[in-house]
């Protein structure tokens, strides 16, 4: 327990130091926020344009899709802010800088994640939060204690699922740094997917997302329960309740792949 606490404190210290370093370039710091805001707003504009042409997309109204988008967006932004730096792992391995992390008495994963903490990534959480607020204001959800718990669990579980996938994907870099961009299909692709109701995708895509790379549990299943909608994967909306379990499982698999990767890692030899 003391160890865990010490790790958390270290994480916080490293993260703060990295954020301060970023803030030194003031103009870039501000522009980065602007860039994230433009990217987030345009994503949602694209959804608005779709609803300009039709009232319901795959049986989901605009506020319902906005709810999904907001929920998934917040989870994704949290993940991106905490561990988005893993995208540079391939570069670190090629340059040999990852080796430095291995000789320090601290988890390599934690050090890569905090090597460049980009606060700008939280802009997306604010933008997604605004969309979520708009959604809730227009949805007349009959909130109950159960739904509130599900809502909170959805955000945390979503972040854990994204993290598990992101960590496992990045760890591929320990075997080959060549095809790293494939990971983007699952991380950024996952974010895109989870912003839309899953029933607009083909049957096999749905099953793949529910049971292989469990993106369906990021926002879709929790939203079914909160909004009281039917399930389009296997007709079992009650699957919403296993969300936290799936989240723990995904994160564990991610960490397992990472550990296997580090054991396999033999440095660049230079």
């Amino acid at each position, binding site marked *: 327990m003391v160890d865990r606490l010490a790790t958390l404190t270290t994480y916080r210290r490293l993260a703060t130091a990295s954020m301060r370093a970023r803030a030194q*370039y003031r*103009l*870039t*710091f*501000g*522009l*980065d926020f*602007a*860039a*994230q805001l*433009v*990217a987030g707003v*345009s*994503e949602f*504009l*694209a959804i608005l*344009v*779709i609803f*300009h*042409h*039709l009232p*319901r*997309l*795959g049986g989901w109204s605009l506020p319902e899709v906005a709810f999904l988008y907001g929920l998934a967006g917040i989870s994704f932004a949290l993940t991106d802010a905490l561990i988005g730096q893993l995208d540079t792992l391939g570069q670190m391995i090629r340059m040999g800088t990852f080796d430095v992390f291995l000789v320090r008495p601290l988890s390599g994963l934690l050090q890569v994640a905090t090597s460049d903490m980009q606060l700008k990534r939280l802009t997306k959480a604010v933008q997604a939060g605004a969309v979520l607020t708009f959604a809730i204001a227009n949805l007349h959800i009959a909130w109950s204690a159960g739904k509130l718990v599900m809502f909170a669990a959805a955000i945390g579980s979503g972040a854990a699922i994204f993290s598990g996938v992101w960590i496992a994907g990045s760890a591929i870099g320990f075997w*080959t740094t*060549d*095809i*790293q*961009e*494939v990971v*983007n*299909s699952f991380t950024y*692709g996952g974010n*895109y*997917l989870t912003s*839309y109701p899953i029933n*607009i*995708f*083909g049957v096999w*895509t749905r099953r793949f997302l529910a049971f292989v790379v469990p993106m369906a549990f990021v926002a879709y299943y929790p939203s079914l329960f909160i909004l009281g909608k039917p399930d389009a994967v296997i007709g079992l909306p009650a699957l919403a309740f296993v969300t936290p379990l799936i989240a723990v499982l995904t994160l564990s698999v991610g960490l397992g792949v990472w550990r296997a990767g580090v054991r396999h890692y033999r440095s660049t030899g230079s």
Partner: protein
Amino acid sequence: MRAYWETAVRGYRRYATYRGATFAGAFTNTIFGIMRGSVLLALLAARPHIGSYNSSDTLTYVWLTQGLIMVTYLWGWNELALRVVSGDVAVDLSRPIDFQGYWLAGDLGRALFHAIFRGIPPVLVGTLLFPLHIPLDPRRWLAFVASVVLATVLSFSLRFIVNLTAFWLLDYRGILNVATATWTFLAGLLIPLNFLPDGPRGVLEALPFAGILQIPVDVFLGKHQGLDLLGALAFQALWAAALLLTGRLILAAAVRKLVVQGG
């Protein structure tokens, strides 16, 4: 002329070195094509005709734009900015060849590589998975190739200007990120410009960004014929010329303040 040709060849070869990365990139472009296609299919099921597009036009739009992302290098081109930051740009400036022409030649070589290996493969997969609109008229293809070349020059002229800001700013990345996010939307990657309500649509279709993705795709789909086709290509060419000229003026200002140390 020979020097530009050789530069273009080097631009092509430079990217040809990274085979794994090329495969991974094409894979990701394809996955996103499937996702964007699925979302719009759900829309098309309810509304088969939007603007001047029918279902297969829209799906073709999705896949062609996925293929054009790397050809027009929409995201994060910073080669020139890196040369400025490292100071190596002084070497480029002292070459006995026009500076902007040198970079443009290299970029066209790169674009050819990306057209073959990042552009065509995703579109082929798209053709297998979705009912796309593929024209058979060779003149249409010729016009499309011309439009893509112009789109590349146009996008280069914008990227050139953004990269030049590195002469003034300590860190060019902020500007580059804002520019990238902005033209991703304005060029119509997230949603075809055709789908926008009339007001915003008119504005965006007059901006240079419309020449990067929307016009090449419209040419491919045969939305421009005869004089209208010439007009569309001229739109791209004029914007490209104006922006290349702006780039030259900014470069001149940058060179005036440039101090080369050491030697």
